[in-house]
């Protein structure tokens, strides 16, 4: 056999093996259908571009801010790049990546995540990082996020991490191996259930230290500088929810107010504004006050949208044909999902 044939055979064999490994990887990686929080970050790329406001942060953004309402009421084009327990350095790198796709006028960051100063959990890391497209931002986000037990190579080749799932594959793994329908509406994860908050929360757990971690505050400062460099205004928010497990302490509030004042940033803490916003804890939460449901999130979005337009001059784009057409599709999808979930 001549050398050419041998090389050809070797190349073919390598290709076949690569294909098998790629297919196996597609099969075994989590599909995030029963816990859709892990699927949202990757959905951004199909809709990237043309947003005036980008929201980053943890569940308090993707369960509180409804881009569809911001559009419908104010013509504000926005997207939520939120994920479960999104740590501040993950928000930073997601934002760095987002600026490569678009130049929003404002970036809104939810401050609860500042309580974490170190990597927390691989499962939550995966929900944010696996969905990111490969870039230097993803690379740095992984480096900053890994717990001691994690390995960088597992993120490059998820098959290494999830190969043991090969014996636990379900129909879902085959169904969504190549393509999966979006779980969010412009980054908002819709919840229509109603589970009232029966008693008002009064306090959180005692903490050993009430100082927000220095590393977290450093990333916040980097985020501010990144926004400045890209011509975007950084706005800070705290969602109106305040349950004992995710308590917003007075000491944290003081630190954020001081920081915002020093850096001349707008900061909106919606906790004391619930009545003004119109939130009814009997109807506007799906889990007894921990998160808002769609009815509460729409109310908050209406309230915040007015502020974004009046105080931050975010434009009304409803008269722009192209943007309007794009949002019409998103509005249809939003309404359809709301009707569907309300029926279930």
């Amino acid at each position, binding site marked *: 056999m001549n050398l050419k044939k*041998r090389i050809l*055979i070797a190349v073919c064999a390598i290709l*076949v093996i690569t294909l098998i490994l790629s297919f196996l990887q597609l099969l075994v990686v989590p599909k995030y259908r029963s816990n859709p929080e892990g699927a949202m970050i990757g959905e951004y790329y199909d809709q990237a571009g043309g947003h005036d406001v980008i929201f980053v942060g943890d569940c308090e953004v993707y369960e509180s801010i409804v881009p569809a309402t911001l559009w419908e009421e104010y013509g504000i084009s926005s997207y939520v790049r939120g994920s479960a327990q999104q740590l501040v350095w993950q928000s930073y790198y997601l934002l760095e990546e987002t600026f490569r796709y678009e130049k929003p006028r404002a970036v809104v960051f939810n401050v609860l995540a500042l309580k974490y100063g170190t990597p927390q959990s691989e499962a939550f890391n995966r*929900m944010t990082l696996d969905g990111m497209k490969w870039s230097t931002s993803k690379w740095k986000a992984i480096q900053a996020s890994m717990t001691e037990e994690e390995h960088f190579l597992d993120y490059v080749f998820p098959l290494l991490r999830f190969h*043991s799932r090969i014996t636990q594959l379900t129909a879902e793994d085959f169904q969504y191996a190549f393509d999966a329908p979006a779980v969010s509406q412009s980054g908002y994860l819709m919840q229509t259930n109603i589970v009232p908050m029966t008693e008002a929360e009064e306090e959180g*757990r*005692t903490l050993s230290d009430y100082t927000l971690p220095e590393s977290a505050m450093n990333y916040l400062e980097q985020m501010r500088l990144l926004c400045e460099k890209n011509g975007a205004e950084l706005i800070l928010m705290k969602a109106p929810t305040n349950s004992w497990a995710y308590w917003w302490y007075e000491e944290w509030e003081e630190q954020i107010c001081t920081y915002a004042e020093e850096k001349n940033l707008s900061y909106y803490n919606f906790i004391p504004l619930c009545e003004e916003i119109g939130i009814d804890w009997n109807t506007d939460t799906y889990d007894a006050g921990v998160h808002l449901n769609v009815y509460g999130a729409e109310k908050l979005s209406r309230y915040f949208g007015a502020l974004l337009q009046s105080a931050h001059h975010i434009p009304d784009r409803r008269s722009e044909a192209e943007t309007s057409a794009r949002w019409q599709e998103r509005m249809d999808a939003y309404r359809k999902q709301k009707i569907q979930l309300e029926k279930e």
Partner: protein
Amino acid sequence: MKRSWMAVFALGLAVILSLSLFGCRKTEDNEASGGHFSVQYKGVTLEIGQPAEEVLKALSDPVSKKEIGDCGGLGAQVRYDYSSLILYVLESKDGAVIDQITLTDDLVATEKGICIGDSQDKVKEAYGNVIQSDGSRLVYTSGDNQLIFEIKDGKVSGIDLMQITQ
């Protein structure tokens, strides 16, 4: 030709196998540090990081129970209110562990006999030189665990056992 095919295929399989073996690490959660701080309640010794199931059975029904699931559906934080203390339990797929203990009255003491209402001096006598103090609290550390005494007017107004905040 057949040999070459076999060699390349064997090499490929070897790569797959080695990648699989490389990925075959056992992932383990952090084990409880088994710190020395504890409280006795209804004849049960309570410590941070202790598996919660047996403890909860032994303590019988709490006055109230509140549960909050985490955002990714991976676990939950559960607060059990008893007559003299609050137990915070972290639940995950690997089981439930005691994450924090907050004493709420003077009927329960730490393992060195300190309870709410005792003097600051008594705390120092029992636990030695304070590790960290800002005037309103005395903080002691053992392994991953902390014992925190809230101080008001020279007396203990609150006691918490918890893991060191990450």
